[in-house]
Every structure is written in structure tokens, then in C-alpha cells.
């Protein structure tokens, strides 16, 4: 049977990281906590069978549960009404805060799966192979989803990755040089 104390120690350590990912996926703190709790509950039920990659396992549940939630919402034709702002951004003189806000809004308009790819690739710094494993799809799908997501972000005229030059290709390296 699952070792409850080990589970609680794991939750204590992993909660902030999982919640950050969940928030980037859901864009709502309540929904994010619900998502993490749902994944942790599923993990608790399967605890004795989960190997050492517990956090990766739970992140995988989170991403897939979120995609299924999003599909259900979509089918009910709920119209996105624009969620509450997380924090007001005072426009700076260079307009950089406005650009960041535009990118943030554009990210929020991506379909769930594309947003998941972007979060896993560019926030979690996962490789294409790790992202594919988490999403349960092929590396090719990750590449195409990344490419589409970046294209959509660029279409907002607010985003231009340094990797944009690699038209149609998914970046596979780590940080770009930005000094």
C-alpha cells in the first residue's frame, strides 16, 4: 500500500512547481489548484505503482486532464470572456510591459494542447522527446504543435522568438544567447 508519509513529503516539495505549471496551463489560480489536486489524487491512487519519476508522472496527468477539461468546455461552446488580470502592468516608457502583456494574452488564446507544448518546452525547458513523452504523442507532433503555436504567437505581431528564423522548425537547443 502507498506510503502516506512519503506521499505527503512529495506533495510538500512538488506542490509549488506543479502549481506553476498548472497555472500556466489554466490561467486561473482556482482551476490550477483543482488541476493539481486532481492529478495528485490520481497519483495517490496509483502511488505504489509509480516509479521514481513521480513528478513527471503527475505533470503528465495534469497536462492530459487539462486538455480533456478544455475539450469539454469547448464542446459546451463556452465563450472565453477574458479572465481577470493577474496583476496590472503599468506601461513602461519603452512599451516592453505592453509587449509582454500582449504575448501573455496571445499565449492564453492558444488551444490547450499547443499551450501545453509551449509551457513544457519553454517554461519547463523540456526537450522535444520529453515533451512528447509527457503528452503521449510523437516528437513530430510536438514539432508541428510548437511550430503552429509559435506561428500563432507571431501572428499577434507581439512575439518574435530568436528561433523564428528557423521557419517551420522546432527549436531543439537550450537557452538562446541573449546577453
Amino acid at each position: 500500500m502507498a506510503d502516506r508519509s512519503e506521499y505527503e513529503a512529495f506533495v510538500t516539495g512538488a506542490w509549488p512547481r506543479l502549481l506553476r505549471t498548472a497555472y500556466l496551463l489554466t490561467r486561473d489560480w482556482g482551476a490550477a489548484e483543482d488541476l493539481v489536486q486532481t492529478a495528485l489524487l490520481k497519483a495517490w491512487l496509483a502511488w505504489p505503482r509509480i516509479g521514481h519519476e513521480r513528478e513527471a508522472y503527475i505533470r503528465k496527468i495534469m497536462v492530459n486532464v487539462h486538455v480533456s477539461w478544455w475539450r469539454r468546455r469547448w464542446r459546451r461552446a463556452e465563450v472565453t470572456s477574458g479572465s481577470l488580470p493577474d496583476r496590472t502592468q503599468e506601461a513602461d516608457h519603452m512599451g516592453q510591459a505592453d509587449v509582454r502583456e500582449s504575448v501573455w494574452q496571445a499565449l492564453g488564446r492558444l488551444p490547450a494542447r499547443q499551450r501545453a507544448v509551449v509551457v513544457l518546452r519553454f517554461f519547463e525547458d523540456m526537450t522535444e522527446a520529453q515533451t512528447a513523452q509527457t503528452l503521449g504523442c510523437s516528437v513530430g507532433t510536438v514539432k508541428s504543435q510548437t511550430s503552429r503555436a509559435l506561428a500563432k504567437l507571431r501572428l499577434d505581431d507581439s512575439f518574435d522568438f530568436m528561433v523564428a528564423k528557423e521557419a517551420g522548425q522546432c527549436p531543439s537547443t537550450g537557452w538562446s544567447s541573449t546577453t
Partner: protein
Amino acid sequence: MPIDRLEFHDLMDERSRPALERPIPWQSLRARIRRSRRRRRAVAALAGAVTASLVISATVLSLRGPGQSDPTSVSIADPFPARYSEPDGTVYRKVAEATLDPASTKVTFDVDVRGKPLAIRADCPTKAWQPWVTVRVPGTSKKYRLEPPFLDCHDNRAVDVLPLPQGTRRATVTIEAHKKARPERWRFGVYEWTPPATMKAPPPPPEPAAAIAGWPLLATESSTWPVTGEVTLTVPNTGRQLALVTYCGGDLIRRLEQEIRVNSRPINTKPGCTAASLQTDPGATQAGPKVAYIRLDSGQRTTTIQVRLVTKIPQYRHRPGTLTAAVYEIPQGQ
């Protein structure tokens, strides 16, 4: 102006950073686990049962009942006490209570203001799709929001309303349901708060971790709030990226903002403080502490980083806190 990949990472890092200050909802998580176990047992019991359908139905009803209203998940404490104190001695006094009923999309009510800052506590039926709280002063059009702009549905912590104009005697609070929210009953308590007449000594400044995510600590400096609330660190420029982590102590941990300057230039990233206890979290990596990635100026021999705590609420200058800034070096290739 486009943003690059590092800035995009910073943006997601910044927006998701409040996660580090949100407590784990143990009560809710444990209740869900208990309910799940109960359902599993019920399913097992039903699978083994070969009795008449009437008896089975009765069993289902009796098992599902407690699962829907777990007695341990019901808080018996009053979510809106008339008066309470925070550990630093700040006293909160209730001035109004309101309810947003499932049938309503908005509730508006007036509160008397006596020159003290206002804060809102919420009794949340769910954590998703929170209502939006704004405060207006009669005769003016400006709206005053919460700071930070969301309710605390975890530990019922009072969230501050941005300062109202001096001389305000009455304010109108409006609470609007989120358009996506299911109709549910939300309760709110409006409080005014008073810092202690004699400020307590601040807690000892947190010691930063010797390394995070394998990044060694380069330099650290501590300060106390409100005496200085500012630290300056100068580190040699080796061409490697730097990461800045700020640790805060005291009741102001989730309430103060930061301004960061690198070589006298402000940076866009405005991370909140990392809780002092997070430094001891061995699992905390890049997604653990709140990290601000520092760009280096090529040609500069040193990099000077200034961190200053700031607040929009003047009464916070009567509440103690600590700040420790730590600079870590990111090895090449990471």
C-alpha cells in the same frame, strides 16, 4: 519590440510566481482522497453484493451521503471573526460582511472608512473563477482594486484594498461574479486594520541556499524592512548568466513588491519574495524559488544589482520584515 526566448521564459516565470506563496490546500486534498477511498470501497462492496436491488440502492445512498458532505472538511471556525491579530501584532477589525448569492451576479454595499486601510477576506465555495472585487469612493469614478488582485481562498488571509484618498469616510464595495463561474454562494468580510503601536523586531533574515539547481551562490546581502528595505550586490562579470533570488521574512511576505536595478537600470522582471522556508526545500530548482535572470552588460567588469522593497500601502511601514538577496551564477550550457 519583440521579446526573445529568455524574456518569454521570464514572463511565464513571473506570471506563475504567486504559486510559490500559495499554501498547499491539505484539507481539501485529504478530503478528496478520503472521498475517493470511500467510493472505491463502495464500488467494491457493490460488486460483491448479490442482494436485492432495493438493498443495493439503500447501500449506495448511505455510502454516498457522507462523501458529499465530509464532516472533517467543514470548518467550524468563524471565517469572519469580529477581530483578530496577525503574528506581527497588526489588528484586523470587521466593518462589514456580505454574501454573493448563487442567483446574483453582483453585490454592492457601503462601508464606513475611518482613515484605516481596508482588506477583504473571503469564504470561498471553490477556488476557481473568483469574483472580482472593486471599491469606489462616492463622488469619484476611480476604482480601487485588491493588491494583489485576487482573493486568498486558502487560509482566509485578508487581501488589501489599494489606498483610498485621504479623508474618505465612505466607500462602496462591488463584488461581481466571474462570467465563467458556476452559481455558488460566496461570503466576504471587510476589515480595517491597524499596525501595532510599537513595531516588533523583525525576524532574523533568512540564510540563502548555498546553491540552487546546481548554481553556486556568488553573493548575498540582507536588510530589514522598513528601516532600509534595500540591498546592493556587486559581482564580477565573468560572462556567465546570473540568477537573483530574494528571500523575505515576516507577515509582509506576500504583500511587498520589489524593484530591481541592474547597473542602475530597472529591469522588467518584478519577482515577488521567496518564502524563507523554501530555501530549505531540497527539491526547489529553477521552478522553485522565484528567480530573476540577470542580463550581463558586455564590457562591464562588474555587475551591480540593487533590490528595493516597495509598497503602495503606507501603513506597511509600521510592520516588520526582512529581505535577503542572493545572486547565483548559472554555469555555461544551462
